[in-house]
Each structure stands twice: as structure tokens, then as C-alpha cells.
């Protein structure tokens, strides 16, 4: 039976900048929108659906649709933090399948580097956020909330700092080939362990970069994809899930990837062992390790052994991951890494990754995002993509 095809990713663009003090966030959105549409061979006039999240300045889609000059019949401003853009691809595919739009544009951009953002400062703090009064006095920032998940994983399963470090080693091995990557130097496990502890057990090199920039995707009806000159990338399966503090029954050993992944694999009709390339949101090394377990690439608790010894390095290991260098080395625009995960998966499926990291005959890829805070509340989103 032929695979049901809901929609295709026809355009993808990652802004080359990593520091943009002289550009507004709105301008960066416009530049990535232009880039992705040019990549697809489409124009602004073709767009009838628009997707953005909390990084877009102004009031939801109203401000950006006006700024960009879009004429729309479908909008979606779903926001689950850095995973939102994977959900946008899924929702765009649904909207296209229902006939609500035919060319969907998704944009992300931000300037956290120019604005002095840091993973050691509180984020998303408003007094009306219901959890804030009960947590903010204790100093949860980004890095220590992820560190809570790492510490518990080590306690329960014997995961080590060395094993986490391998995730950074793999990302850096890939980033050396990316001329736009913020950090291009390869590193060793010992380099990671020798970098300062920011929030135990996470070292500086367990943390992603803070970068300006952005990215955009164009999702289209299969009929349009066929008419374009670019390789066709099908959205084969998608899943989304939220996990929080479970009414006080906190369990940091698993993430919502357990559900978003299962849903995506079931829809795609494939198994983790079929995946040739994986983009896994790497806000911190622990984000990758827990996601790999929950997505089913290894058993729960075996993530440390799975990532060790270069198993995530393209051409070396069993599961090439984040071949652009990921958030750990390449780019983490707007402090939201989901967009760049999809973009590198598209590059791999098109055969347009750097030759040194390109997976041979890459026909099936996974992209996964973890948005928000792994140690408190987060939104997971998984996409399974295939080259037609």
C-alpha cells in the first residue's frame, strides 16, 4: 500500500548569522522567510498559511503577517518553547491535508546573544505564570533545571559525566565541517570534564550556545512539491506531548518524547532501527540522552552506553545525529532549537549536508524537540521525514 502523503517540506533556510546586533528580530524573520521560499522556488504570493511562536515579535501572527506582507487563510501560533516548530510542521501537514492551506510558511528568529541572554539567568518569568510563586524563590534558571534531570538519571541508572560528554564530542566532530557554526573546534571527553561545572552535574561544554539568527521552513501540498525543482521530503509521521510536574509526583527519568515519539513512529509505520539520521534537540547533553531513550533508540537507562564511544558521530557510529553541530556547537537561535533540527534533517534527506557528515542514501530521518524545561515542564515534538 502506498504511503499516505499529507504534505512535504519544500523549503528550508538557516540564517547564516550567529550575531546580529544591527538587525531587528522582525527583520531576521523576514530574511529567513525569503530564504526558505527562495529555496523552495516559491514566492511570498504563494503563501496562504503562516506559523510562528513566541519568538515572533508583536501580537501573535498579526504583527508578523502584516510585516511580511502575507495574505493568509490559515494561521497557527502554537507555542511549546523550542519544540514549537516541529509541531508547526505537523500542524501544517494537517492543515494542508484538510485543504485549509497549500503553502505554509514557518519562521523563527531571535537575538538572545546580542541581548545578553544566558542559561544562568531566570527565563519566562511573569507573576501570573501559576508555577512561578512556588519555584522562582529557589533560583531555577535554565541550566540547573536540566541538571536536575541529569542528576536523577545518574542516580537511577549510573549514567556518567563521561557518557554525557560523548554527546558534545559528537556534535563538535560534526561542527568542524560547518563554516557557520559558532564553535568549530573538536573536543574530547576530557575537555568536557575539564570545563567548569555550571550546575552540577552539567559542565560548560554540556550546554548549548547562545546565538542570534533564525530559520524558516515551507511545507506544501504534495502536488506543489512535485511541481518544484527540489527533492521531495515527505512528512511521514508526527507526535506532540506535554509533560509537567505531575501534580507533585515528579519523575525526571523520562520526557514527553515517550509519547510524541510513539505517536510519530506509529503514524509513520517505521521503527527506531529504521532511522538513518536523527536531529535531537541538544539544549544540553542530557536532553539528547533522555530523548534517545524515550524515542526507543535504546532501553530506558541505557542512554549513557548508547551515546558513548562515538555512536552519534556520522561515519563512525550507529546513529548519526546533529550533523550541523546542533545547538551544542552550531546554532541555537532565539534560544529555541527545534527549527534548526528540522532544517538539518531536510539537508540530510536531500543529500545536501556537508560531504564529511552526509549519511549515505539517507532516506528516513527523525527530528525531535524538547521545549521548555526538562526538569519541570516541557513540550516534546517528534517528526519522521522521508525522501521520496
Amino acid at each position, binding site marked *: 500500500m502506498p504511503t499516505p502523503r499529507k504534505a512535504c517540506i519544500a523549503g528550508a533556510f538557516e540564517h547564516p548569522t550567529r550575531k546580529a546586533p544591527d538587525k531587528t528580530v522582525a527583520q531576521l524573520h523576514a530574511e529567513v522567510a525569503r530564504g526558505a521560499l527562495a529555496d523552495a522556488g516559491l514566492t511570498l504570493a504563494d503563501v496562504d498559511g503562516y506559523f510562528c511562536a513566541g519568538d515572533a515579535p508583536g501580537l501573535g501572527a498579526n504583527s508578523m503577517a502584516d510585516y511580511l506582507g502575507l495574505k493568509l487563510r490559515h494561521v497557527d501560533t502554537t507555542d511549546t518553547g523550542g519544540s514549537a516548530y516541529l509541531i508547526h510542521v505537523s500542524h501544517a501537514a494537517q492543515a494542508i491535508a484538510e485543504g485549509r492551506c497549500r503553502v505554509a510558511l514557518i519562521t523563527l528568529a531571535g537575538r538572545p546573544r546580542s541581548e545578553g541572554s544566558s542559561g*544562568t*539567568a531566570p527565563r519566562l518569568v511573569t*507573576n501570573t505564570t*501559576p*508555577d*512561578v*510563586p*512556588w*519555584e*522562582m*524563590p*529557589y*533560583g*531555577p*534558571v535554565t*541550566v*540547573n*533545571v536540566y*541538571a*536536575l*534531570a*541529569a*542528576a*536523577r538519571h545518574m*542516580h537511577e541508572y549510573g549514567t556518567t559525566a563521561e557518557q554525557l560528554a560523548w554527546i558534545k564530542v559528537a556534535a563538535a566532530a560534526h561542527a568542524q565541517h560547518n563554516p557557520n557554526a559558532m564553535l568549530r573546534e573538536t573536543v574530547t571527553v576530557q575537555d568536557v570534564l575539564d570545563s*567548569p*561545572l*555550571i*550546575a*552540577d*552535574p*552539567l559542565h560548560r561544554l554540556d550546554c548549548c550556545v547562545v546565538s542570534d539568527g533564525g530559520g524558516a521552513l515551507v511545507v506544501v501540498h504534495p502536488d506543489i512539491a512535485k511541481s518544484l525543482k527540489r527533492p521531495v521530503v515527505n512528512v511521514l509521521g508526527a507526535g506532540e506531548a506535554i509533560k509537567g*510536574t505531575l*501534580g*507533585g*509526583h*515528579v519523575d*525526571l527519568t523520562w520526557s514527553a518524547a515517550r509519547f510524541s515519539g510513539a505517536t510519530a513512529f506509529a503514524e509513520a509505520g517505521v521503527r527506531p532501527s529504521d532511522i538513518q539520521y536523527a536531529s535531537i534537540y541538544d539544549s544540553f547533553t542530557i536532553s539528547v540522552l533522555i530523548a534517545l531513550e524515550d524515542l526507543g533508540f535504546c532501553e530506558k537507562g541505557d542512554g549513557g552506553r548508547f551515546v558513548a564511544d562515538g555512536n552519534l558521530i556520522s561515519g563512525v557510529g550507529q546513529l548519526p545525529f546533529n550533523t550541523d553541530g546542533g545547538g551544542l556547537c552550531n546554532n541555537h537561535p532565539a534560544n529555541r532549537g527545534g527549527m534548526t533540527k528540522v532544517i538539518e534533517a531536510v539537508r540530510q534527506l536531500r543529500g545536501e549536508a556537508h560531504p564529511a557528515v552526509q549519511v549515505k542514501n539517507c532516506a528516513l530521518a527523525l527530528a525531535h524537540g524538547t521545549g521548555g524545561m526538562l*526538569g*519541570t515542564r516541557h513540550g516534546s515534538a517528534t517528526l519522521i521525514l522521508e525522501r521520496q
Partner: protein
Amino acid sequence: MSTPSQDRPLGKVVVDAATEPYWAAAREGVLKLRRCTACRRPHWYPRPVCPFCQGDTEWVDAQGTGEIYSLSVTRRAGPIAYALAWVQLDEGVTMMSNIVDCDLDELRIGQKVRLTFKPDDGGQPVPMFTPA
């Protein structure tokens, strides 16, 4: 290695309809939880509608004892190192807190802790924990 805990500025707590009785109890040295009047289960953080069954909830006193579920000694988020933790109370719910008045380097997951308080920038006592 030794990292003695130091008091650090906590800012000012958020006082609103959801939190005012909690802070009032803290001024009396009591940690409050909310428990459902229908399913009788406590939850964290406190909410007027039960997250398990949507029943109404009521304030109850916690014993103020528990153990560290997870822990991160945060060394480079400001000038003062501090221990962010999830503390599982003996009532079964897990709350975010800090572990204070101790050597941060000696803290371990599973360690027994008991309630203490540290003042916020306005003098309001904030529930925290120290090794039992």
C-alpha cells in the same frame, strides 16, 4: 572540596490570592500543602482545583520532613553557589526548594532533610530544607 552554603538574595515572593495563606503560614513556621476534599490526595504546587480529580482543595499542614529527589549545586548563576533541589515530602509530593545551612558538596540524592526558612528581600520566610 567544600562549599559552605551562603544565604543569597531571594527577591520578593509573589503574594496573590493563590499564595497569601501559604506565606502567612510560613510566617508561623508552618509548611502548607493543598489536599483534595474529594479524592483526599495532596498535590504540589498548591492549586484550588485538584489536578487529579478537579475536586475542591483545602490547606493542610505538612510535617516538614522528606528526602532529596534530585539536586543541582548551581555554581555559576550569580556570585553565590546554591543547591536547587526537588524535595519529596513524607506526604508523597515533591516540591522545588533549596538545601541550605550545609556543605553543598556533601549533599546527596536520597538524603533526609527537614524544613527550615530563609527570609526573602522583604523579610517574608520562605520554606527551605536542611539535612536532617
